[in-house]
């Protein structure tokens, strides 16, 4: 993974580089907005970690130019400016995630992992969660190479949850997502489908967690 880090504070940059290299990234560091823009237009990176408060060219401008060139690499923005408007503006400009200073390194690492995974899953035919592999075109789920027997409805549920990995999927969203497989689904029907899916996922290292009043979350690890 080749990552560009645009950060003008040397001590913060050093800490981020150390953490990311530990996570298997090859990190190039620039401390100037113009240099970031040049690096991004000349070389190809898999990920950009961008501080908005850069000298020279402002971070938002670097981001705007990057997206103008049609580059779709994931961008994690770091900023000390914490106003909701700012967050919306940056996400609108094409950032994928947003981290406010001060932050914990573990938080940064988690966000980077999620971004990389999402980018890898984007448009992929196969989704991986823990030991499960979802073959989307084939509508099959494999665990360690062996097929788990799921009905179309159960597979639809699992696929809907897996594509929104790390995010809560609400009941209406689930019903909408699997209505393509099954014409109609009542609230009760959804409960039953979730119940059956849970039973079939037992022992697979992946489980469906209920988030009270909000929906469901696909998790690695057994619980409940």
């Amino acid at each position, binding site marked *: 993974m080749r990552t560009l880090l645009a950060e003008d504070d040397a001590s913060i940059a050093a800490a981020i580089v150390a953490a990311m290299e530990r996570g298997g990234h090859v990190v190039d560091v620039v401390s100037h907005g113009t240099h970031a823009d040049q690096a991004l237009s000349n070389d190809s990176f898999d990920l950009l970690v961008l501080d908005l408060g850069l000298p020279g060219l402002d971070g938002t401008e670097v981001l705007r130019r990057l997206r103008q060139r049609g580059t779709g690499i994931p961008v994690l923005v770091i900023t000390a400016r914490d106003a909701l*408007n700012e967050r919306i503006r940056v996400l609108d400009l094409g950032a994928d995630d947003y981290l406010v200073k001060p932050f*914990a390194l573990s938080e940064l690492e988690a966000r980077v992992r999620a971004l990389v995974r999402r980018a890898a899953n984007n448009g992929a035919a196969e989704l991986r969660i823990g030991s499960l592999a979802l073959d989307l075109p084939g509508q099959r789920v494999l665990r360690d190479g062996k097929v788990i027997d799921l009905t179309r409805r159960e597979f639809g549920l699992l696929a809907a949850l897996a594509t929104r990995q790390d995010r809560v999927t609400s009941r209406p969203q689930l019903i909408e997502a699997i209505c393509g497989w099954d014409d109609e689904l009542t609230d009760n029907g959804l409960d039953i489908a979730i119940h059956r899916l849970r039973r079939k996922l037992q022992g697979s290292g992946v489980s469906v967690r209920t988030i009270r009043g*909000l929906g469901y979350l696909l998790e690695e690890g057994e619980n409940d």
Partner: protein
Amino acid sequence: MTEIPAGRGRPSLRLRLLAFLMVPILALLLLAAAVTYVVVLNYDNKEHDEELVTDARSVAALMRTERRAGALSPQARYLLAFETEGTYYFAVQSALHGTLSSTDRYPAPLRLPVADDAPLLFDAVVDEQPVRAVSLRFLSPNESGDIITVTMAETLHSRKRLAREILLVTLPVQGLLIIGILALVWVGVSFGLRSLDPLMRKLASREHGLDAITDAGVPQEILPLTRTIDALFGRLREAIDVQEQFIADAAHQLRTPLAGLRLHVERALEATSPNTMRDSLVHIAQLTSRAGRTSTQLLALMRAQSPLDTEGALTGLDLALLVRDAVTRRVHDGLRAGIDLGYQGPDTAVMVQGSAARLGDLLDNLIDNALAYAGRDHTVTVSVQPAADGTVTLTVEDDGPGVPAVYLTRLGERFFRVPASREGGTGLGLAIVRRIADWHHAVVEFSNSVHGGLRVSVHFARPGGSA
């Protein structure tokens, strides 16, 4: 001092005053002209009538002295024919001899005046022209039994001329009068406004002073304005005092973790054993995260306090949707903290008047607070309850240890922290909640839940209704 350009569309005192004065002045001047015209015309009519009567009497007198029966003397003829002004008609008739002399046409009175009595003045029409006429009758001195009637008439042209001439003189004079008034108003406004100069100079010489300006010798008409400005100054002073106090508090709050940091950095630098160093680093990690949280919270409180905020517009929004989104975002934080974070409320829209950005801050702080103090393996529930009367209650409730009753009333005070509570709180979260609620005219209520934990309720008034 910068000049403000007199932009188009900016109201002007002069123009207002002029517009206000012009209509009545014009009306008054027109009325004066009309009255003058009528009075002059009336006077002139009387004059001409008297002349007519005099002429008629002269003819009669001549005829009495001439003593010629049935004919006119040359003098009388001359007197009748000689008339310069306007068109003139006359007739001299004898009861016995018929018309003695006349113009081609002449008016006849509707009724004849009594002989040897006062002449009769009347209006008539000759040649389709209005005329004023007089008739006079007397007994003929030459021939007993004969009665002579003298009728004389003139057109009205000469009568209106004088009135018209007077009017022609009056109108330009009145025009000059109007121009004079306009000029006086123009200059007068500038002159009147000059009484504000001392006040302006006084304000211009100030740098940051916000003292009252009402005593600065302003004219009494301006007092309502200066009193309003003074009230604004007063509020600004208060706001500045609050900000200054806030900055002092904030600096103090940041100083505490910084002092701890410094001590532990020194300790770590001097440490010889890795264990001591590690212990210091653990403290340093805690202190830095606390300082970071404090600064974040201070900024949020600042935002919540600031009335001048573009994020702050009140709009109708779906609170249930906002809460579901906010709770959904925090699910992972709940899982990490080992807390079952959930939502309770309708799936349908629950409308309140609010700012989505600020309510987002409010929810984040309430959830932060609950996640921080409920404790592992506890439950936190965020609920939205619309009431039948249109009010809406947002509640964040946990089944953790709760807050001792004596401290419940102090929650929401800036920098207040429940004694002996968990380390690391900033004492700002609930203060932010209270500020944002105040801003929404919502009421915050802290109580202990029936499940044992803290219960924070925010009561929103009915949208559009008074709180």
